[in-house]
């Protein structure tokens, strides 16, 4: 790997759309500098979420950030929302350019 790749974490949260505002607030609060959202559908413990009306829309929320920030977001999201909301969260390793953009 060339020297200009820098190790970061990618935190992915799949959640019901009602959490969108809350997740954005958590990301900002933890100090991450950006996020990306995609519309998804799926199924899990709470059954199928087919996404064809507003009550069953799900989003996939992704943040590239450093490990500490990812931990902060994950802890807060799990602590506050995991019990009451449809929510799946996972972390993976990525490498980025322009490391200063991903704190």
């Amino acid at each position, binding site marked *: 790997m060339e020297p200009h790749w820098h190790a970061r974490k990618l935190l992915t949260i799949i959640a019901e759309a*009602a959490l969108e505002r809350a997740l954005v607030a958590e990301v900002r609060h933890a100090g991450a500098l950006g996020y990306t959202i995609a519309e998804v559908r799926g199924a899990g413990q*709470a*059954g*199928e979420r087919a*996404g*064809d*009306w*507003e*009550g069953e829309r799900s989003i996939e929320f992704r943040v590239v950030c450093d490990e500490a920030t990812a931990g902060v977001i994950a802890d807060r999201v799990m602590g506050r929302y995991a019990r009451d*909301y449809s929510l799946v969260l996972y972390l993976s390793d990525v490498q980025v350019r322009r490391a200063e953009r991903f704190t």
Partner: protein
Amino acid sequence: MNLDPVIPFLLLGILARLVKSDLRLPEALYEALSVYLLLALGLKGGVELAKHPAAGLLPQVLAVIALGLVLPLLAFAGLRRMVGLDRPNAAAIAAHYGSVSVVTFAAGVAWLETRGIAFEAYLALFLAILEVPGIVVGVLLARGLRVGAGFGPMLREVLTGKSVLLLLGGLAIGALLGPAGLKSTAPLFVDLFKGALCLFMLELGLVTGRQLSQLRRSGPRLVVFAVLTPLLFGFAGAALGNLLGLSVGGAALLGTLAASASYIAAPAAMRVAVPEANPGISLPIVLGVTFPFNVFIGLEVYHAYAVHLAR
């Protein structure tokens, strides 16, 4: 018999789900139609609203707000005592039944128009007004007196939510422009109303069908609740309409409003304000039972009762 087109369209959607058809309507169409219905109802109501002196409406508005505060309390009591539900779920479901359903109102409007029965179109204003108190009461019931930090944001979200905003916006535009000013937009907002409602019913049928298949999550008591409550509330609404001097059609429509349960504003607000309530038990009865009950049977019943009251 005077079968309304919305009924077979709703049935077709439910049927498509039951036979596991791959029929799916794009979510964008669902959203576009719901924006359209809100605007169309608002505009229609606004045009009529302009004809009434605001002062004359005030008593009606206050009475309707009172209705919106009392109904969720009744629903809550029933859910706690008779159904035996825990506090958060009872409060959340009370909010749904205290608030109102736009598409049920639209179906009521279509039902009356099909039969040429006059009604006060400005009831769309009450539709907008009735969205809110049920939700507020529901949140207060869930939290007791601990209104707490989240209450302000919640209220703000309900008041700026798409249903209240588009209804009030449509009412204001309708009142401002009047029938002449809106004439050029009538081919969209008036002529297409019934057809668009039918399409929306088809979509909702698909949603309803899926909720129906999950009724066992809610349990038999809630199913009974989901049939008795609209009946009771529908009679209450019609009676209030009669008291307030509405026409027979208007009283039937106020009954329909009271009988209807919210499936847009209330679920969204409850997810934020009462997250510990489980939408997996409220949505099946709201969408799988009460909504089709009102469309298939309720409209007839509330109207018959309004006729009876007017005698």
